[in-house]
């Protein structure tokens, strides 16, 4: 189950880390869900066209980034309401994927395309002498191992570079940035594009692991990714822990579904409820002890 949880965690974590950049720059990216979905679709399409996993992941990354740029252009440049724009992007993904799917392949259902390679396992056959650890940590798909450098890199960039500092001050007080002659919009753009890459890549992992595109394959994970940002106290390592918790919870709930006969449809509502609870907890805690951000 832990093995499964780690596998589930990877996309959640990548989307969450990307969203963290946007959140720190002061832009709540609620379009993570739509970006993941677009990433998943684009990944399967480009993997099928090229027969390569890497191209699939690149396709997902690009799809997420394109939507993120649209988000930036309308939401930041044209000063539209961020939340409405985010919803629009989610709707756009939800509406245009079935359209593209039926225009290109004649179905808007499950998309099983030829030449989509299987996601290879990494570190297979290596033994460290601890069979339990081997079982849990080795043999995962590539995306899982991508998350380790991603967390480190995110932490490094956000905490130890001038870029990260400026990005964070964009969120806290954009006037400061303007006062030193920098344009906060540029940092918002960078942050949004990073979140688009993260979400697009996350989507590509979801789809490539299955080898098919399923309608609504993201199933609320974009929203859960948002929750991990808050539960993780807006720190990359915190996001990692939160994503792991959710992944374990999903493992448990999948198991519970079999044992307790909870209908799967109701579980679809769970991500939203959890997001509300996390928000309330976060707001309530802020009021008790005003934190530094």
């Amino acid at each position, binding site marked *: 189950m832990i093995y499964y949880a780690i596998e589930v965690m990877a996309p959640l974590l990548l989307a969450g880390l990307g969203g963290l950049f946007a959140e720190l720059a002061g832009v709540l990216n609620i379009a993570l869900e739509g970006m993941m979905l677009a990433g998943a679709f684009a990944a399967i399409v480009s993997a099928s066209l090229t027969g390569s996993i890497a191209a699939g992941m690149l396709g997902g990354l690009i799809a997420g980034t394109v939507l993120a740029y649209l988000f930036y252009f309308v939401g930041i440049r044209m000063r539209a309401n961020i939340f409405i724009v985010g919803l629009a992007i989610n709707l756009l993904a939800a509406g245009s994927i079935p359209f593209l799917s039926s225009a290109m392949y004649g179905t808007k259902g499950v998309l099983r395309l030829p030449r989509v390679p299987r996601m290879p396992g990494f570190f297979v056959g290596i033994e460290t002498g601890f069979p339990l650890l081997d079982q849990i940590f080795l043999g995962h798909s590539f995306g899982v191992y991508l998350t380790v450098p991603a967390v480190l890199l995110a932490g490094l960039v956000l905490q130890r570079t001038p870029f990260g500092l400026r990005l964070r001050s964009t969120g806290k007080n954009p006037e400061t940035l303007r006062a030193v002659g920098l344009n906060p919009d540029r940092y918002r753009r960078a942050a949004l594009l990073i979140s688009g890459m993260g979400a697009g890549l996350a989507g590509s992992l979801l789809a490539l692991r299955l080898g098919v595109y399923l309608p609504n394959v993201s199933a609320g994970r974009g929203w859960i990714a948002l929750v991990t940002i808050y539960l993780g106290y807006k720190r990359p390592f915190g996001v990692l822990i939160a994503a792991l918790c959710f992944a374990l919870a999903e493992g448990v709930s999948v198991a519970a579904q079999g044992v307790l006969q909870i209908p799967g449809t109701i579980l679809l509502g769970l991500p939203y409820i959890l997001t*509300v609870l996390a928000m309330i907890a976060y707001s*309530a805690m802020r009021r008790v002890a005003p934190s530094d951000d």
Partner: protein
Amino acid sequence: MSRSQPESRVLVTIAAIGGALALTVLLLTFVSSTPQAALRAFFLGPFSNRYYLGNMLNIFSTLAITGLGMAIAFRAGVFNLGGEGQLYVSALTATMTGLALASLPVMLGLPIALSVGILTGAVIAGLSGVFRYLWDTDELITSFLIASACIPIVDYLIVGPLKDQASNLLTTERVPEAFRLPRLLAPSQLNPTLIIALLLLVVAYIALFRTVRGYEWRLSGLNRQFARYGGIHTGVYIIVPMVVSGALHGLAGGLFVFGTHYATLVGFTAGLGWNGIAVALIAKRHPLGVIPAAAAFAYLESGAHIAMLHTDFTFELGTIIRAVIFLFVTATVLPHSDIAARMSGRVRPFSRKRQT
């Protein structure tokens, strides 16, 4: 949705609708083997016969109520983004009440069933208002999330325990014959919801612009701090507008059942709640502005429906149109103005400064 509304916003609105239209034309031309027929159907279809015309007016009626529900919340500076779910859940509770009270006389049973629908919507939306009041959680997001969580539960109930076993469709049982509202333009679905909607718009206009409470309501939306300074209990104007907004969606849901479908079907709200938001934004949050906005949207929606019959495959054209309108409708053409500064106050909805 900025709290200021310079005239340039009219241009943006026109551009948003125009963009959506252009995209629709493009898509229809692209996907249809008979693009001319499809375009004709899209533009002229809604007026081509009684059936389509009545159905368009019926869409208008529901949109006018949901649009009003959004507009008056926006007026008070609160945002209800859960309309879709509120409509759906209320439709189900109203249906179930109608079925349970089938033996009562219609004059008693129908109002009770509609009230249950109204109450359902009011409670779901009201929760977000209470959360905002108590903990300053952004009602914009919580209303969306709570409603989104409700939708799969309703889906489950209709497909599962509440399914009409006699029907092949995913639907509840149909409400008793006596409870169904009369059809105004048979064979179309048009029913007295239209009259109720128009009455509500007028009542809302008078309440908002001709009463003291309405003044306080609008002032709270314009500048909450100033309103409080003026002695208005602004906390009330967070919870009450959410409750009223939810109640209107509940009413719309109930009427949708008793006037149009006579049952709750899986996914039958089909974006009516979402479109309510777009209608309210296009109407510039004005109750009477809702009339042209809802008419424009009803036209687009029914045009899209009819045009789909003339293309080779179906897809969610309505969703794409809605996405494009959402994308641009709140945009402003003034890149660096004080709106920008004000909007940046909304950029971080999670940690909005406490204004109550």
